[in-house]
């Protein structure tokens, strides 16, 4: 609370020093807890027990990371815990190549290898195999993706196209959030916390065995986030809260088959100040909007292992979301059926193929700000893919060929092939390269939407009437296309050190622009339409570096650096990307019961598209910020932690949403958390 009012530099420094002092005292007060070094003899265990043991994947993980011919980064459960983040998008800041900015207390803009946007539309996000990418605007509502972080197994982030396996819209990257197997979350966990920005949050989970080979868990979480401040200093009115609950049950039917059923349900209230534009209020009318969000999903999966070289899975899910805000009221129901089969053909070929059917139907309420016409629409997507991983020279040279073939209702057939080559001149050194094609299919808004962007007030003649500028969807709007060229190098000498360098050159074609249409006289105002069209091309290129060093058992250092350049044609209608970004994390465990984590981040200056400014742009300064976390586990059951976020400034601006809201700054925050496990 102290820090929120600490706007003055000196005062801010005093606040910071005070916090350090508190941390120091806390550190001194901690005492060592003796370790219970129990080591059971594995040879006394039965086969059933052995089959249940999770085996070390030190080599497996290293192999997993270093054997893929793609730019992949994995956030582990430990990384999530040690970072002190309370949501997924903030965790993604540790990934090189990703561009994460918080727009206000309850909105994020996330993109990969490009300028970000609240409506970033080329990133595919999956939670346990369920796509959370919305076809309405081809983006992700990050604020409603509230998985229970304690139960996340890992988050895999693939930068660059993943369309061959994942399909259209996996253009700039794929984010795969995977929660733990129900067997891994046995017992109870209760956590409770609160602070200046993360005002109050709680989560609880209980997992139990439901019979001999069946495990389940249920969880519930809720939080209340404080409002941020507008750049001018007044409160932004963007406080919010979401409540979510869910379950996961999985059962092993026999040696070969296992089934899983999981589901979530959520409901939330998100406050925001929306600038409502109309011919009558050309300067916009600030409205306190109470957005209501809700949704739920149910996922069923059957997996069958036929042999060490063959397995298949069948997954079906239903997902429902509803969002009611000042400028849009949308309901959406989706059904998705997916089959995948993986097998080895001979010694050299590892083949994976699959087929998917997806049905989605929506219902939009008529709204003067964002009109979707027709209000309801149902779409079907059919797709199939095949990929062959060919071992040209055993453990040395591997070629991966594949393509996705799909049919959608907007653009018809789409083919998205890729070719990848991995060369290991030495087991510790790997080089990879790829060429791939991906498309971003039109969103509902680009096809059927009419959005009021801006109202120019009447001035002296000749313009005596207000001009209403609208962005208008067009039925012949086509897919945006990307051809990506990538080259990467990995050095993994042992499991304590890894260095990953990825470079890319992206060639975008048919990219989105808006074109001026002929103005239309509408009686009391003049309507100027801007029609979506595909008249733009761009090149982006960059380098991403990720290094991890487990220096000693009690100190792990992680460095991520990204360099990104966009080369646009004149008249680009996209924001400017941060040229340099860096993240440095230090996870120190001075004693087994004590964690100290430091996370420094730097993001270069950017500019975002902002319709309310004179040149349609808003320049944002670069920023350097610091998060700290101190945790103490007095017993095996309890953990107390104290986290400071964005400590270096009382507030800073990260991004401005294109329209409807005003520049809102992220504030320094501090929170405490107690976790009890049993």
């Amino acid at each position, binding site marked *: 609370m102290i820090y929120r009012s600490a706007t003055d530099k000196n005062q801010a*420094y005093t606040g*910071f020093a005070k916090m*350090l002092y508190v*941390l*120091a005292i806390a*550190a*001194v007060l*901690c005492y*060592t807890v*003796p*370790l219970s*070094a129990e080591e059971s003899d*594995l*040879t006394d*265990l*039965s*086969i*059933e027990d*052995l*089959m*249940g*043991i*999770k*085996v*070390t*994947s*030190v*080599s*497996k993980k290293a192999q997993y990371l270093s054997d893929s011919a793609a730019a992949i980064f994995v956030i582990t459960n430990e990384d999530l815990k040690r970072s002190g983040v309370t949501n997924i998008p903030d965790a993604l800041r540790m990934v090189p190549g990703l561009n994460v900015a918080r727009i206000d207390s309850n909105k994020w803009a996330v993109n990969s290898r490009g300028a970000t946007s609240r409506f970033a539309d080329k990133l595919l996000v999956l939670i346990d195999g369920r796509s959370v990418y919305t076809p309405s605007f081809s983006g992700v509502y990050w604020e409603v993706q509230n998985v229970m972080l304690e139960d996340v197994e890992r988050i895999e982030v693939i930068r660059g196209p993943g369309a061959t396996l994942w399909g259209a819209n996996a253009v700039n990257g794929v984010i795969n959030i995977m929660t733990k*197997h129900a067997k891994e979350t046995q017992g109870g966990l209760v956590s409770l916390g609160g602070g200046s920005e993360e005002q109050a949050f709680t989560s609880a989970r209980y997992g139990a065995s439901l019979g001999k080979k069946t495990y389940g868990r249920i969880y519930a979480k809720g939080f209340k986030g404080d409002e941020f401040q507008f750049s001018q200093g007044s409160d932004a009115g963007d406080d919010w809260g979401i409540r979510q609950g869910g379950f996961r049950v999985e059962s092993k039917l*026999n*040696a*070969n088959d296992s089934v899983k059923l999981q589901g979530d349900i959520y409901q939330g209230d998100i406050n925001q100040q929306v600038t409502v534009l109309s011919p009558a209020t050309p300067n916009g009318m600030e409205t306190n909007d109470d957005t209501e969000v809700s949704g739920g999903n149910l996922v069923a999966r059957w997996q069958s*292992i*036929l*042999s*060490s*070289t063959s*397995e298949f899975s069948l997954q079906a899910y239903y997902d429902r979301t509803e969002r009611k805000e000042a400028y849009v009221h949308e309901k959406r129901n989706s059904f998705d059926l997916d089959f995948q089969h993986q097998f*080895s053909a001979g*010694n050299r070929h590892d083949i994976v193929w699959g087929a998917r059917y997806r049905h989605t139907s929506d219902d939009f309420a008529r709204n003067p700000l964002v009109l979707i016409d027709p209000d309801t629409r149902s779409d079907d997507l059919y797709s199939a893919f095949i990929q062959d991983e060919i071992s040209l020279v*055993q453990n040395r040279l591997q070629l991966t060929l594949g393509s996705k073939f799909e049919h959608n209702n907007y653009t018809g057939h789409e083919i998205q092939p890729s070719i990848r080559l991995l060369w290991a001149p030495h087991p510790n050194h790997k080089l990879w390269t790829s060429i791939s094609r991906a498309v971003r299919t039109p969103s509902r808004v680009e096809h059927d939407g009419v959005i009021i962007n801006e109202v120019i007030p009447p001035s002296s003649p000749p313009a005596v009437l207000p001009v209403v500028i609208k962005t208008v969807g067009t039925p012949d709007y086509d897919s945006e296309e990307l051809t990506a060229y990538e080259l990467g190098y990995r050095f993994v000498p042992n499991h304590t050190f890894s260095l990953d360098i990825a470079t890319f050159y992206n060639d975008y074609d048919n990219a989105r622009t808006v074109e001026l249409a002929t103005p239309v006289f509408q009686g009391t105002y003049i309507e100027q339409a801007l029609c979506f069209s595909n008249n733009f091309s761009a090149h982006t290129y960059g380098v991403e570096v990720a290094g991890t060093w487990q220096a000693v*058992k*009690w100190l792990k250092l992680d460095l991520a650096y990204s360099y990104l350049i966009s080369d646009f044609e004149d008249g680009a209608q996209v924001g400017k990307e941060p040229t340099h970004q860096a993240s440095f994390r230090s996870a*120190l*465990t*001075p*004693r*087994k*019961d*004590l964690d*100290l984590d*430091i996370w*420094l981040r730097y993001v270069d200056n950017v500019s975002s598209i902002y319709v309310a400014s004179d040149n349609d742009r808003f320049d944002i*300064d670069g920023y*350097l910020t*610091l998060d700290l976390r101190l945790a103490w586990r007095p017993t095996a059951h309890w953990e107390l932690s104290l986290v400071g976020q964005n400590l*270096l400034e009382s507030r800073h601006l990260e991004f401005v949403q294109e329209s409807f809201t005003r520049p809102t700054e992220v504030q320094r925050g501090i929170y405490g958390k107690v976790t009890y496990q049993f």
Partner: protein
Amino acid sequence: MKKDTELAKRLNRICCSTVFLLLLLFSTLGNAFAFDQRMGEYAVKAAFVLNFARYTQWPDESFVSPTEPFKLCVLGNKAIEEAFQTLNGKKIESRTLDVRFITKAEDAAPCNILFISEGIDHAILLDALAAVKGKPVLTIGETKTFINSGGVINLFNRKERLYFEINETTAQKQHLKLSSRLLKLAIIVGDK
């Protein structure tokens, strides 16, 4: 210019505080660490091998006396030796397990159990399997081609858990009888 000095100040502040905190924490350093709660893959695999031995019946002629030691041969790299060494001296009914580490395919013939690890050259693997073909030797491997090459049991990893597949026909040809308990837990492959 102003921004630069501010940045410098900020960096200075971070450095000072980081050093301070590090010093403080180093001074309270404890001495014990136990990080990896998960089990080493080969420690678990070795325990599997012991269980496979317990649930397999060898023909009487395999042993001269009821107390003759049980020979487990491990054909693999140095890295897995430690895990298998722990099996040495373990009891299987009245017999003691005698673990040997071999490097040549020819040495496989007198074994009762032969474990071939994944790092082994494919040609050596084939030679070793040929050397024991039709003999009462339980062959256990961990490569995807192991069963097709004529192995009996193959261990494999899926989502960080171990599974095993068994080719019953090969087991019969090796004159081995696998217990129904083992077969129930295995993924049965090959001709049924």
